[in-house]
């Protein structure tokens, strides 16, 4: 039996695939880029959804991992482009699969280190400290001139994927879409697994989790690390989309945006991040076309969602019940 939520998810997934393909054949590649942006931001938010949606960890610092992924792509590409070795004589690379692995590893490592400290705390402390650590990395990126400092780091030619012309907007979209699909699949498996059960239980009642013999801190730390990995992968894709990495990927606004995406779509829902990202990007595009002051109206809409439409869009469509 298919629930309304599943049906809705399938429609969204098909729309996100069909719209850019149609746009591409109509010659409107701008919309393909817009859809790519949606897919990448969705992926970043799927990562955050592991920590925030499943684990109830309100991380206001996920831009850190997004940025780490972005800089991994930028730094590797810049060394490959300039032909200079990275460190220990290792060369840079323009191969996306290698870049992704490096981005995921560093994103995971950063999340592990930050989680190690921040997960000792909870509630408001956790929010503020994740924000602070992301800000630390932000300031480091600004004050470290080797990779562009405040000005950011350009990627002169988009990195390559074997057998694919990544410069073709539709090809790059399909690549990002496939990775998003994989991430959603992994999210679903994770949510339904033993680990997912333990993680969702720590959100609801960590004393109970500890009392049956499962250590909540370790569960959260692993979840936070995995969460950072997903978001870092998205960061690497984002860098390649814009062919540019800058400290703005690490900014607190970016962290806030990622949270906003999830809330718009629906916290803890499989497709929450996708719906949220689509809504956010389209809203930004649509409002931006009407008024220069689109952020003002975006703020009003957000405020309305928080105060009056709890549960996000999927909550409105599928009712308030969470899966789990």
């Amino acid at each position, binding site marked *: 039996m298919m629930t309304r939520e599943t049906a809705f998810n399938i429609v969204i997934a098909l729309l996100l695939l069909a719209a850019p393909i149609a746009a591409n054949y109509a010659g409107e590649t701008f919309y393909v880029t817009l859809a790519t942006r949606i897919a990448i931001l969705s992926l970043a938010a799927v990562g955050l959804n592991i920590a925030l949606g499943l684990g109830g960890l309100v991380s206001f610092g996920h831009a850190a991992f997004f940025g780490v992924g972005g800089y991994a792509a930028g730094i590797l590409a810049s060394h490959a482009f300039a032909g200079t070795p990275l460190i220990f004589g290792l060369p840079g690379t323009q191969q996306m699969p290698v870049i992704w692995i490096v981005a995921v590893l560093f994103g995971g490592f950063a999340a592990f280190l930050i989680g190690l400290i921040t997960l000792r705390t909870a509630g408001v402390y956790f929010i503020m400290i994740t924000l602070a650590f992301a800000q630390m990395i932000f300031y480091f990126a600004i004050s470290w001139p080797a990779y562009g400092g405040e000005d950011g780091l350009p990627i002169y030619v988009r990195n390559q994927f074997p057998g694919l012309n990544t410069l073709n907007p539709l090809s790059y979209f399909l690549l990002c879409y496939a990775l998003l699909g994989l991430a959603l699949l992994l999210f679903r498996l994770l949510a339904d*697994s033993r680990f997912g059960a333990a993680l969702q*239980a720590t959100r609801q009642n960590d004393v109970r989790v*500890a*009392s049956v*013999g*499962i250590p909540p801190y370790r569960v959260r730390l692993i979840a936070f690390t995995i969460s950072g990995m997903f978001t870092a992968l998205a960061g690497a894709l984002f860098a390649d989309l814009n062919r540019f990495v800058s400290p703005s990927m690490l900014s607190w606004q970016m962290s806030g945006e990622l949270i906003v995406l999830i809330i718009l779509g629906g916290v803890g829902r499989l497709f929450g991040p996708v719906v949220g990202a689509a809504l956010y990007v389209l809203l930004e595009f649509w409002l931006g076309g009407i008024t220069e002051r689109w952020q003002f109206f975006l703020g009003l809409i957000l405020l309305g969602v928080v105060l009056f439409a709890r549960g996000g869009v999927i909550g409105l469509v599928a009712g308030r019940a969470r899966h789990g």
Partner: protein
Amino acid sequence: MAEAILAIDELVKNFGALRATDHVTLDLKPGEIHALIGPNGAGKTTLISQIAGTIRPDRGRISFDGRDVGALSVAQRARLGLGRTFQVSSLALEFSALRNVMLAVQAVSGSSFRFFRPVMRDRSLIEPAMAALERAGLAERANVTVAELSHGERRQVEIAIALAMKSKAFLLDEPMAGMGPEGSSRLTGFLDGLREEAPILLVEHDMNAVFALADRISVLVYGRVIATGTVDEIRSDPEVRRAYLGDEA
């Protein structure tokens, strides 16, 4: 006499100026129900929490199954076989009763750090969990979300979790609370048989149940154990009568 499975030695806990646990020494032997009674505020839950590990004592020793558990975390003690139920039900509210119990099964039956196999198709989790719910008398409500269960039913989920943990000792903090007379008498019968499986340290206000069940009773007043003995010894103990009749008559 058999070796105690749980032994508490000279435990002390202060909250500011209040001494919540005052040099408490007691133990739990295989096959027995040891009831802990005392007026409200006597420090019973504080004591249970120290045994389970949610509160750290200031002084004293807790040993379980032959080892000192004082430095272990809540989760580590639980994995050694200390099964606790809470005075105020403490469950994952958005999960069904079954999923709450399954969590306990997965905790004892191996690792919680498995990332792919869906739990809702995992018979090695579902079957033991259903069996525990069955024994706790809640099988037909297994798929109801805990948030929708009554207080009494939540107590049953707590019991089922303790069962599913295959505990070597149970710490039951007022399991009868909010159950109603019928439920209480059913639970009394159930606990009577449970002691064969693992001994029970029972905190309870329902004196009928305590007198019907307990092999030994310890009376806690202002954080101090004023008497330990059989039901008859406690009934006739002058200090207990003074503490209780002064308090509740």
